[in-house]
């Protein structure tokens, strides 16, 4: 359109006016932007710089390697193996399902596990690494690494995982590790930041649990620069983790393995101690279970099998099991009588099969009675009437004091789970717990290890060690910690007259070596390896007067859970004691027939350091013993290496 000069000038002026307005607005906006820039970059610069530092620096925890556990010869009982895992970050994966599908073709993954990992990954923030598979073989692990370009978001990682090479043999001693549970955090009040690491494992049972603070080590950390997706760009610095302390136990793998094998099939436990040092060399509880199951995550079905088993494989019977000691308690009553001066060793008491106390009859295990018994005879033949008589003279106060002196009723400081203190009853205890006064009948029952008395196999082994040495031996399980000797001084004397101890020891020698001894069948013919011991058969039921009249039902005819416990305590060699043993076979029947042979085998195995030669056994029994040893499935143990020894 054509315009006149005037119109053009007018239009130009109008545009100029309006453009000045617009230009002014632009300038004002520019000023506003500049002011904002100044506010952010000058006035609040320090705030933002701080935020920026937090943005890019991330502290990562480095888990320490758990301390190793060795036996007394330096064999590894618990070690850490490399665990090849595959970790996935959803954010970097793109198509999660496609990647998982490709991964499952390379690696053998259970479909359920895969689905669970996928669900977890979807539930968490996209940058959180999730373990998809663990315990891969080296082949699987390397093929994941090789195929990395086709598996975005997948990282193969190497972690450490606990392994127990001897499996079930040490489940009750070494215990196991497991994941950190909420319950664990609450009950221990443990605030170590390392517990926040996913898949970190802590000791959950026995030595692993009780020595946790020593075994765990110090958590390390590293500061890394990360981007917004959490990807590590570079490491700024690191404080390396301090590995946990290595632990050497007093146990002997060979003996432990033999003991577990010897007890198999029974619900039983056995403790073998060095009498001089108090070292626990074997601590067997049968049945057992594979602790490695707990490390990997035990299935409900497997766990159900363990908890429903009437033989209670999860219980560590050596320290948790409490049993009436039965006749194994008689040495205490005898010593209490001698020390109190209430009886002379040669003084005889006549056994007619029972004594009468008011209207109640207290029976001897032998219906017809033993006749005239002195102290040694009373131990040898385990005459109950002798101890009923003695108990009435001595009284419960002296008996329970002697029991405590010999180590019963005390909770020993060994790093095991659920260590029980047992029960040495006295007047105060009965008043407080039963609400009635102590009566003489209670004393009679206590004198033969029945009634209220309860002891663990560990306590019985301690008692035996103290009888063998006359010193206040205390049990110990830890030999060294990071090479530093942890063993106690064991020289404290019990202050019992050696002559009195000698009487008791003679009785115990007779038990295993004299023709009339209750454990004569389980004797050792090899002179230098003879055993001194005591059998025990403890009732778990009351025998009524009516039953006695008609004849006591034989153990074999009773249901398993009502049968008597079979016990044996002893030490060997009898003339120069080295090892003490206690054996309890739950509902096993008689101490002489069931517990004594086991105790003999364990003591011989301990003394010989290998499977005992049949020459140690009476000729008539050798074939059976050889057959038994052939059947036992023992681990082929290499002699301990020098490297292992020095390392431990």
């Amino acid at each position, binding site marked *: 359109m054509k315009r006149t000069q005037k119109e053009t000038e007018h*239009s*130009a002026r109008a545009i100029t006016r309006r453009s000045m307005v617009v230009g002014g607005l632009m300038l004002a906006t520019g000023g506003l932007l500049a002011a904002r820039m100044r506010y952010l970059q000058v006035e609040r*610069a320090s705030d933002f710089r701080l935020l920026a530092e937090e943005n890019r620096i991330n502290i990562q925890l480095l888990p320490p390697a758990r301390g190793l556990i060795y036996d007394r010869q330096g064999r590894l009982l618990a070690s850490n193996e490399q665990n090849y895992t595959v970790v996935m970050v959803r954010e970097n994966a793109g198509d999660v399902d496609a990647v998982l599908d490709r991964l499952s073709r390379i690696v053998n993954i259970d479909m359920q596990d895969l689905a669970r990992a996928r669900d977890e990954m979807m539930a968490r923030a996209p940058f959180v690494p999730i373990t998809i598979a663990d315990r891969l073989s080296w082949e699987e692990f390397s093929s994941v690494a090789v195929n990395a370009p086709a598996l975005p978001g997948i990282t193969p990682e190497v972690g450490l995982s606990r392994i127990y090479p001897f499996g079930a043999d040490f489940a009750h001693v070494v215990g196991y590790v497991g994941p950190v549970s909420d319950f664990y955090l609450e009950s221990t009040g443990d605030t170590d930041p390392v517990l926040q690491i996913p898949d970190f494992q802590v000791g959950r049972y026995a030595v692993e649990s009780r020595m946790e603070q020593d075994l765990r080590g110090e958590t390390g950390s590293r500061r890394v620069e990360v981007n917004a997706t959490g990807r590590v*760009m570079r490491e700024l610095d690191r404080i390396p983790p301090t590995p946990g302390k290595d632990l050497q136990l007093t146990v002997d793998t060979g003996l432990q393995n033999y003991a577990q094998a010897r007890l198999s099939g029974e619900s039983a436990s056995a403790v073998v101690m060095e009498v001089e040092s108090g070292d626990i060399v074997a601590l067997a509880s049968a049945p057992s279970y594979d602790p490695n199951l707990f490390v990997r995550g035990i299935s409900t079905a497997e766990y159900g099998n363990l908890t429903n088993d009437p033989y209670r494989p999860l219980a560590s019977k050596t320290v948790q099991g409490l049993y009436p000691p039965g006749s194994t308690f008689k040495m205490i009553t005898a010593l209490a009588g001698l020390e109190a001066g209430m009886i002379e060793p040669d003084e005889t008491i006549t056994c007619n099969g029972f004594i009468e106390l008011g209207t109640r009859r207290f029976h001897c295990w032998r219906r017809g009675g033993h006749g005239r018994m002195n102290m040694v005879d009373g131990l040898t033949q385990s005459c109950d009437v002798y101890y009923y008589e003695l108990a009435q003279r001595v009284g419960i106060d002296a008996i329970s004091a002697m029991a405590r002196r010999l180590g019963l009723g005390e909770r020993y400081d060994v790093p095991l789970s659920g260590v029980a203190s047992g029960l040495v009853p006295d007047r105060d205890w009965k008043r407080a717990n039963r609400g009635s006064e102590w009566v003489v009948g209670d004393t009679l029952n206590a004198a033969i290890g029945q009634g209220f008395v309860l002891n663990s196999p560990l306590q019985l082994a301690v008692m035996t060690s103290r009888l063998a040495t006359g010193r206040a031996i205390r049990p110990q399980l830890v030999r060294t910690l990071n090479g530093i000797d942890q063993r106690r001084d064991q020289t404290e004397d019990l202050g019992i007259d050696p002559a009195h101890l000698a009487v008791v020891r003679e009785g115990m020698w007779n038990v295993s070596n004299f023709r009339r001894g209750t454990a004569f069948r389980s004797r050792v013919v090899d002179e230098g390896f003879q055993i001194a011991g005591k059998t025990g058969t403890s009732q778990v039921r009351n025998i009524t007067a009516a039953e006695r009249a008609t004849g006591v039902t034989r153990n074999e005819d009773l249901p398993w859970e009502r049968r008597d416990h079979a016990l044996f305590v002893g030490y060997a060699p009898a003339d120069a004691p080295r090892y003490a043993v206690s054996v309890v076979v739950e509902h096993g029947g008689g101490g002489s027939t069931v517990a004594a042979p086991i105790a003999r085998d364990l003591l011989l195995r301990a003394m010989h350091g290998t499977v005992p030669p049949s020459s140690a056994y009476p000729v008539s029994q050798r074939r059976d013993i050889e057959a038994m040893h052939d059947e036992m499935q023992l681990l082929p143990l290499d002699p301990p290496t020098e490297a292992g020894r020095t390392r431990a």
Partner: protein
Amino acid sequence: MSFLEYTHKATPTGLRKVLHLNWALILLIGAVASIGFLMLYSVAGGSMQPWASLQMQRFVLGLVVMLIVAFVPIWFWRNLSVVAYGVSLLLLLLVEFFGSVGMGAQRWIDLGFMRLQPSELTKVTLVMVLAAYYDWLDIRKVSHPAFVAIPVALILVPTVLTFIQPDLGTAVLLLIGGAAMLFLAGVHWAYFAAVIGAAVGLVTAVIASRGTEWQLLQDYQYRRIDTFLDPASDPLGAGYHITQSQIALGSGGWTGRGFMQGTQSSLNFLPEKHTDFIFTTLAEEFGFVGGMSLLVLYLLILLFCIVTAVKTKDRFASLVSLGVAMTFFLYFAINMAMVMGLAPVVGVPLPLVSYGGSAMLVLMAAFGLVQSAHIHRPR
């Protein structure tokens, strides 16, 4: 003959046009683009790949396009305006109905050597068609309602098309840019007062109705508005970008961490670090001084465009120059306000700096129009 046409004999011809180019403007553009190259080099971790070298090639191509546009007389472009506007609308419709198939929300047309975003093209063609319209229109009829309705329709059609793409940034830019053209052309201020008044009234009503029984929107819609207006209320969701961006910017301080020393952008905390959020890298590495320098360069470019517009007596040339200035201004003002947390996050690049072919070429062509107006101004 228009005023220019009978005085054009005084305008330079042939190669002499090179001498009459607005060299200061070219220098300013070059300076801004160079800042862009530096930043793209930096965010790539000190590498020409993948962004800086390609951006340089596009800039060179853009310079050539600018010179070609500049050397063609401005009245030729006026005559082409309607066609250009029509073509860009056609392309917009094309991506609207065919571009979305298969590729999600595709906003471009693949030309082989580059991807053309019709919405970018529209920003210039809208300015052109509006300038041409007011050049044609009798000045006395400018504020006549019927003649206001026509340009409003010209603005709304591409605005709606880009809005439903959805490309909120471009839609806002077209709307405000177009309105500014009407204002510059002399449309009575009462129209603007009425529209602004109505908008303010509507927003007030919507906000005031919240929580009352005559509430105009659903609750969830209000919550969306909340996060849109105050991203900090959701720092790991919608507000993540803006929070990270402010951290990067603020940590720059007076003089910045130094070239290539930016931690936030190079560590991937920033989204879109090479496109919409590239200003944060500049601000982090060169601080307040660097950010202000860029702002001053931008304002100088605006000044040169406005001076050109005022100097030329041709209505089309003048309006086109002002329109280009306004578009350019909206680009960087919205981008910077967004990055600095003054405006909601809408996808608007930082002109001449952000990585992107269409915006660069279209802007260079637009500056070509300003250069053409400058060369072919009456003497």
